[in-house]
C-alpha cells in the first residue's frame, strides 16, 4: 500500500482527547487505517482507554474491549478462540503500553507468544507509565527523569538501561517481530501489512513519543522519532521466523546528545551520564548493524568510572 492509498475511513476518529502530538494516538490511528474494519481491539489500562473511550464518547469504530492492565495477551487469546470457534475471520489486535508489556503484562504476553496464538500484539512504547503521571517502567532509558526517578541531589534520573524486550519476545520463536516508527511511514505501512498476512503471534513494537512525559514540543513528535532512529536510540528492523533484517539504516550516525537535548526529561544529564548513554548506544549500534558507529560519535574518552559502566553493559548485553 502506498501512502496516498492509505484509506481514511475514520476507524479511530478525530475528537479523541489525546494530547496534541501524542505519538501513541498517531500510531493507533495509522495502524488501524491499515488493519481495516475486520479488526477487534483490546486495550489494557493506559492513556488509550482514557483518550479513546471515556463514556459516553468513544473514538473507536471497530469493536473495542478493555478490562484490566496486565492481560493483553490473554484477552487476545480468548477473543481469537471465540472468533475461530464461530468461523469468523477477524484480526485480534492489542494496543498495550510499555508498562503493560515490559512489566506487569510480560507474563500474559509471554503465554500468548509461547502458544503462538494467532494474534497481533502492538506495544506502544513511550518509555514510562505516562497515564499515571510519568513513572519509570522497564522501558525507561538511562538518565531519564520520571517522577519515580527524580533528579535529586545524590541520584539523577533512571540508573538502568532500557530493558531489551525485543530479545525476550524473539526468544519465543514467534513468526514475526518488528520495530516501527511514525517518522518512517512507508516502513510502518509495510510492516503492519506484513504482520496482517502472517499467521501466529505477531509483535509490532512502536516507538511513541509522549509530549508531557518527555517534556517536548508537541510539534516535534515526528522529528524526535526520526532523531531517535538517526542516533541509534531506536532501530528499525524485523525478525521473521528467526531471520533478522534491518529495514532502515541511517546514512550517518547522529550524536545521542542531539536527541536528548530536544527533551526536557534528559536536560539535567551530566556530561558523564551522556557519555555513558552514548557508549551504550554505540555498543548497540555495533551489535545491531554489525559495524562500528561513526568515529566522531563513538571514539570518545570513556567516563571516569568506565569500569563500572562496562560491568553494567555486560549485565545488560552479555560479554
Amino acid at each position, binding site marked *: 500500500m502506498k501512502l496516498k492509498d492509505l484509506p481514511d475511513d475514520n476507524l479511530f476518529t478525530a475528537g479523541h482527547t489525546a494530547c496534541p502530538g501524542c505519538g501513541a494516538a498517531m500510531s493507533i490511528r495509522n495502524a488501524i487505517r491499515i488493519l481495516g474494519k475486520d479488526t477487534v481491539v483490546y486495550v489494557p489500562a493506559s492513556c488509550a482507554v482514557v483518550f479513546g473511550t471515556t463514556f459516553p464518547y468513544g473514538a473507536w469504530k471497530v469493536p473495542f*474491549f478493555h478490562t484490566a492492565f496486565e492481560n493483553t495477551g490473554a484477552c487476545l487469546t480468548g477473543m481469537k*478462540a471465540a472468533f475461530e470457534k464461530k468461523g469468523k475471520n477477524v484480526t485480534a489486535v492489542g494496543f498495550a503500553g510499555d508498562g503493560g508489556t515490559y512489566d506487569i503484562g510480560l507474563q500474559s504476553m509471554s503465554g500468548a507468544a509461547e502458544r503462538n496464538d494467532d494474534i497481533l500484539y502492538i506495544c506502544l512504547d513511550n518509555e514510562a507509565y505516562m497515564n499515571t503521571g510519568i513513572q519509570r517502567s522497564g522501558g525507561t532509558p538511562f538518565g531519564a527523569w520520571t517522577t519515580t526517578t527524580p533528579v535529586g541531589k545524590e541520584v539523577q534520573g533512571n540508573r538502568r538501561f532500557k530493558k531489551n524486550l525485543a530479545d525476550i519476545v524473539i526468544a519465543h520463536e514467534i513468526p514475526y517481530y518488528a520495530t516501527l516508527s511514525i517518522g518512517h511511514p512507508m516502513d510502518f505501512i509495510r510492516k503492519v501489512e506484513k504482520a496482517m498476512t502472517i499467521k501466529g503471534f505477531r509483535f509490532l513494537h512502536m516507538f511513541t513519543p509522549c509530549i508531557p512525559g518527555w517534556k517536548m514540543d508537541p510539534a516535534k513528535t515526528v522529528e524526535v522519532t526520526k532523531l531517535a532512529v538517526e542516533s541509534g536510540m531506536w532501530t528499525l528492523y524485523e525478525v521473521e521466523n528467526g531471520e533478522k533484517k534491518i529495514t532502515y539504516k541511517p546514512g550517518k550516525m547522529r550524536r545521542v546528545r542531539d536527541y536528548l537535548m530536544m527533551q526536557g526529561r534528559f536536560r539535567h544529564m551530566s556530561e558523564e551520564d551522556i557519555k555513558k548513554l552514548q557508549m551504550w548506544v554505540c555498543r548497540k549500534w555495533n551489535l545491531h548493524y554489525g559495524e562500528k558507529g561513526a568515529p566522531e560519535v563513538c571514539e570518545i574518552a570513556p567516563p571516569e568510572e568506565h569500569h563500572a559502566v562496562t560491568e553494567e553493559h555486560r549485565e545488560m548485553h552479555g560479554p
Partner: protein
Amino acid sequence: MKKVITGDHAVAIGAKLSRADVVPAYPITPQTLIIEHIADFVNDGEMDAKFLTMESEHSVMSAAAAASAAGARVFTATSSQGLAFMYEMLYATAPLRLPVVMVNANRTLTAPPGIWCEYNDSMGVRDSGWLQVYVEDNQEALDMVIQSYRIAEDKRVLLPVMPCIDGFVLTHTVEPVEVPQQQDVDSFLPPYTPDIILDPERPAMIGTLMPAEYIMEMRRQTADAFESAKKVIQEVNDEFAKKLGRNYGGMIDTYRMEDAEAALITIGTVTSTSREVVDDLRKAGKKVGIVKLRFFRPFPSEELRKVLSGVSAVGVFDRSISYHGGGPAYNEVRSTLYGLMIPVINHLAGIGGRDVTKEQIVKMFDLTLKAAKGEKVKEIYWHNTRGETV
C-alpha cells in the same frame, strides 16, 4: 446412563453436555481432574471446544471474559489460590454482564497452606458480582453446571455463575451419577445468543472508562440483575425437574422442616450427613430439620424468612471464618432474620478440610435445641477444635 465417577469428572461432563465453546484452563488441586477430563474430551473429538492452556489463573479469567465478550459460551474451573489470583478479573466479568460459568473446587486459601475443603476461597469473593451455588453431591455438581448456563445467559440475568463443590469430598470421590442424554440437555439449554458482542459487523465498545456520573447506574443494574436472578433460578430449577427429572428446590432446599423447632442451615456435602442425623433425632422425638443453603449469591433472604418463621432457634453451619465474628453464612442469616426475634447460633466446623462427623452435627442440633427452649447458649461454637470447644 448411570456412571460411577468423581465430582470433577461429573463437572467436566456437565461442561461437555452444555456445549461450551471455549475452555481456558490452568491446573490447581483439587480442580485438576476437571480440566484433564475436558482436555481428553477435546483431543478425542468428543467435545467441540477451543481448549486454551493459559499460563495463570489471571490469564484464564481474562481469556474467559474476552471469549465471552466475543460471543462464546465459556467454561472454566479453579480453586483457592487460583480464585484469589483471578480476583481482579472476577470483578471485571460481572458488571460487563459476561455469563461465564466457572466451577470452584472449594479449598483452603493459604496461609497455612492446605489443599482440603474450606469455603474461605469462594466466600471471600461473595461481592464480586458472581452468582454462587453450593452443591451436595456429584449429581448436583453435574446438573448445576448445565443449569448455571441457563441462569447466566438469561437476558434478565446476564451474570457469571460459580458452582462451588467441596474439594476432595466431591472432587476426588466417586459416586453413581445419572449422566443426562445430550438431546435432553439440548432441549433444556438452547445455544447462547447474546445481543451485544465484539463483532465487526455491529461494532460495540465494551469496558469503556466510566466517569462518576454513570458508574452508580451500572452498579444498580447489576444489583437489579441479582434480584431478577432469584426468579430465574426458580424457573430454571422447575424446568430442569420437569425435563431432566431432578428437583433441587431452587434457592434453598429443605428437609423435614414441616414442624421443626430447631433448624440447621447447611452448605455443601455436610447436608447429606445432616439428613441422616435428622432422621435419627426425629426417631428420638426431637423436632429438627435442615435448610440447605444452595445459592449464597443471590442470598435467599425471602425464602429463609419464610421457611424459618415458625422455628424457635436456628443453627448455621459455616466452613470458613469471617474475622469479625462467626462465619459468612451466619452473618448473612442473622442479618436476614433481623426482627423475627429468633436466636441464631453459629457452628464452625470442618475448616481446613477436617471431617464433620454425625456426632458433631448431633451437638449442633443439641445446642440449637437448647436455644430453642430459651436456655442460655453462646453465639459462636467451634466444633471439634483444640482448646475450648463443645
